[in-house]
């Protein structure tokens, strides 16, 4: 019944998310305090670990790249009114696409052809894996949330089987493929910058981040500046109005899911073509799931997703540093902190809103805001 009060955009997408993150950090600080560590020291170690020196920044951005892809994937589906929980599985199968293309062709093709093909392989396999739940939703009415979750398990089982039994490098014990030829390696950013004379610390940060940012821009253009994006958003916001407008809902579901799956699949290029240079088990390490939180926090806007990815990259890298520094802070503790950020900025995103509304109304009536806007 109660109408939501309008707030200016800078509060809605600027101040509130930051406040939510701070709130999460306060709660995390209390937990850290409970295990006997000064929370301010912990924060400073986290920040230093994530941003304090060149290598750290590289690592932070490298993690952020994964989140950009998986976050964008969730965001695109979300604009079509579909909740794609299957980013993890789609990314995993995207890795299969990368591996198959490169293992088949890296002896014959030069890098300028092989690398685009590898990227395409990732996108195509991710898209295909998402298309199955999409088809089931569009034509058989199976709920996308259920099917995409299930497909994560199928993907995991399939990949273990293929890696252990089929793709495993001959005469080895560890479940991984042979190493990719150097022609398939994505160039590292510190190498590229070094070549033009800008020094940067060594890190796994590679060309994928550029591709990820280009995807952000591409998805933004697609959603708000093409008729297909228009149709997709119409379907997501008001399915009835989309039918009224003659938008073919079934095809739009397939389009949205394949785009979403392709983006999730492309996460594999950062890990496999950028860093591991082989297909290994569990390289997705939960990035696909965290993508949901990234999309939520980024309000499903491509640029918001990029910013949220940066934050999650920071938590990932800073958290690792924290766990390294204090034996009482385990890896699980870092996951708890991440979870709190997800909780406060995702699930409880609107909890603080009424306070800001009240504050804003108060400031407005006392003339503070108008004065600020005139100035």
């Amino acid at each position: 019944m109660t109408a939501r009060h309008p707030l200016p955009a800078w509060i809605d997408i600027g101040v509130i998310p930051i406040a939510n993150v701070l709130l999460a950090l306060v709660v995390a600080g209390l937990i850290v305090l409970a295990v006997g560590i000064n929370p301010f020291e912990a924060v400073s170690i986290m920040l230093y670990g994530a941003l304090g020196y060149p290598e750290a920044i590289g690592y932070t951005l490298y993690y952020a790249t994964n989140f950009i892809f998986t976050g964008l994937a969730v965001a695109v589906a979300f604009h079509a009114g579909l909740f794609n929980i299957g980013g993890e599985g789609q990314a995993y199968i995207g890795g299969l696409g990368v591996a198959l293309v490169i293992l088949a062709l890296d002896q014959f093709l030069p890098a300028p052809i092989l690398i685009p093909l590898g990227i395409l392989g990732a996108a195509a396999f991710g898209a295909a894996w998402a298309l199955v739940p999409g088809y089931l939703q569009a034509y058989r009415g199976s709920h996308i949330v259920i099917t995409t979750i299930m497909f994560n398990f199928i993907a995991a089982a399939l990949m273990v089987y293929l890696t252990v039994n089929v793709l495993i490098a001959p005469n080895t014990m560890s479940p991984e493929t042979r190493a990719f030829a150097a022609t398939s390696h994505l160039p590292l950013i510190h190498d590229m910058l070094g070549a033009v004379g800008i020094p940067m610390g060594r890190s796994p940060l590679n060309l994928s981040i550029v591709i990820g940012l280009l995807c952000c821009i591409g998805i933004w253009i697609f959603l708000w500046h093409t008729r297909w994006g228009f149709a997709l958003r119409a379907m997501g916001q008001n399915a009835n109005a989309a039918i009224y407008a003659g938008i073919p809902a079934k095809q739009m579901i397939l389009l949205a899911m394949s785009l979403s799956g392709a983006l999730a699949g492309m996460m594999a290029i950062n890990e496999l073509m950028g860093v591991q240079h082989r297909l290994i088990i569990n390289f997705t390490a939960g990035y696909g799931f965290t993508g949901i939180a990234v999309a939520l926090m980024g309000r499903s806007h491509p640029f918001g997703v990029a910013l949220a990815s940066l934050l999650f990259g920071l938590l990932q890298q800073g958290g690792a540093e924290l766990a390294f520094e204090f034996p009482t802070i385990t890896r699980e503790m870092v996951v708890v902190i991440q979870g709190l950020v997800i909780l406060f900025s995702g699930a409880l995103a609107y909890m603080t809103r009424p306070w800001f509304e009240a504050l804003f109304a108060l400031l407005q009536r006392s003339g503070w805001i108008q004065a600020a806007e005139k100035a």
Partner: protein
Amino acid sequence: MPAVIPSVTRGEGRNAPPAIVLRDIHKHFGLVHANRGVSLSVAAGSITGIVGENGAGKSTLMSILYGLYAADSGEILVDGRPVTISSPRDAIAAGIGMVHQHFMLVDTFTVLENIVLGAEDGPLLRRSIASARKEIERLEREYGLKVDPDALVGDLPVGEQQRVEILKVLYRGASTLILDEPTGVLTPQEAEQLFRILQALRERGVTVILITHKLREIMAVTDEVYVMRQGQIVAHRRTQYTSREELAELMVGRKVRLSLDKPPCRPGPALLKARNLNLRDKRGCVVLNNVSLTLRTGEIVGIAGVSGNGQSELLEVLSGIRAPDGGEIVVGDRHITAQAPASPAEMRQLGLGHVPEDRHRYGMVGSFTADETAILGYHQDARFNKGLLLDRRAMNAHCAMLMENYDVRPRRPDLNSTHFSGGNQQKLILAREIERNPRILLVGQPTRGVDIGAIEFIHRELLRMREAGCAILVVSVELDEIMSLADRILVMAGGQITGEVDGASADERTLGLMMANCWTPAAAETLVTVDAAEGASAAQSGLAWTTP
């Protein structure tokens, strides 16, 4: 707790304090000043009307009285005592009850269960139900509110559901009853019954506040009326000393013509023919039963009927949203059937425009900007695209043009569609559909939730389209609207067309009977104007309709 109704003590004495007094109520929503110093006084045991256009602030005011919103400042007095109402619970405790426009009932519960819901005596249901039964019987006797207490609410016709809502409020001990647009879903006969109930309530000392935009009802049933405009009370009249025309003028702030001057209708060739359309819903119930109609150029055909009798489905089938299960629609040389359905996009290409009944559900996407809503359905057009990209500048210019020509306010193509008032949303959608010069125009509820000034405009636009040779179908639950617009009126009930009347010679009583009487198969047979051979099947479906 079922409080006992304070019966005849109030309203008897002339010098009893007013039941409700509002003093200098202010309410802001952000920068919008929805109520600006509203003061009014409602005499105990009276029926007081509050009229005003949409957005005039009457719903906000009632929401404040019922505790849904908190006022920024101002004072509320009940029976002369100042009270603080910060939730509906407080309002109920103060003896104020509200019957909402959309009923708040659980379909799968019985009438008694619905009434007791939220006012149970204790953890065990049986005792509450038993004591409620006695209380309900008393209320029924006193006010003539007849409802079967053991019927499932979902099985009741709308008029009776509304009675359940009123009983619910009375059961909670309300001595003041707020009704928000109560007749929107009723047949004229059901509305009459409601008014009789309200009068019975008044005799017993219950105070009634009636919010409506139907001036005829205000004139028929109220003792006093307050007129609101732009958040303020602009007039207070005793109903017997005012007139519809005066109230309309006060609401809008200028002279309004309530009747339309229509040039005579000269129907030309048929542009759309529907033959024996049949449709079943998901549960297999017949929702369209052998509906046939013809739309001719230069003619407005009106479909009258209580909502939920197949009109919505008819519009959906004609506009391509749903395919018929049987029968065919002929437009030009295209035959649309169950085997060869047409999508809404194809219907648009055949020259059909469609202003949907429910603009929030179908006509627009709330979170889209106005210029996006203004191309919904036409987003594939070359003029809005430049290669692969949408031409945002052309979209913006197009929307600005529509806003200028159809007086959509504010003229802000970049504003979200939800931020426009109902009337302006409707004008924008109408503009979008009319501007394409369709040969056939389907219009559902052209003026639902639209203020008087805009109603006048929309009606004139539809007439202009008729003069330009468009074939127009108007579906409306407002009989006045159908009677003033349509050249030919078809009446729908139970999924079939139960009568056809010439627009000029139509009268409300005949239409009302056609709208209501089809529920009994016998009446259906005498009223059905389709082939005599179909009489039998019509009767059968009349039965099928009432048995779920």
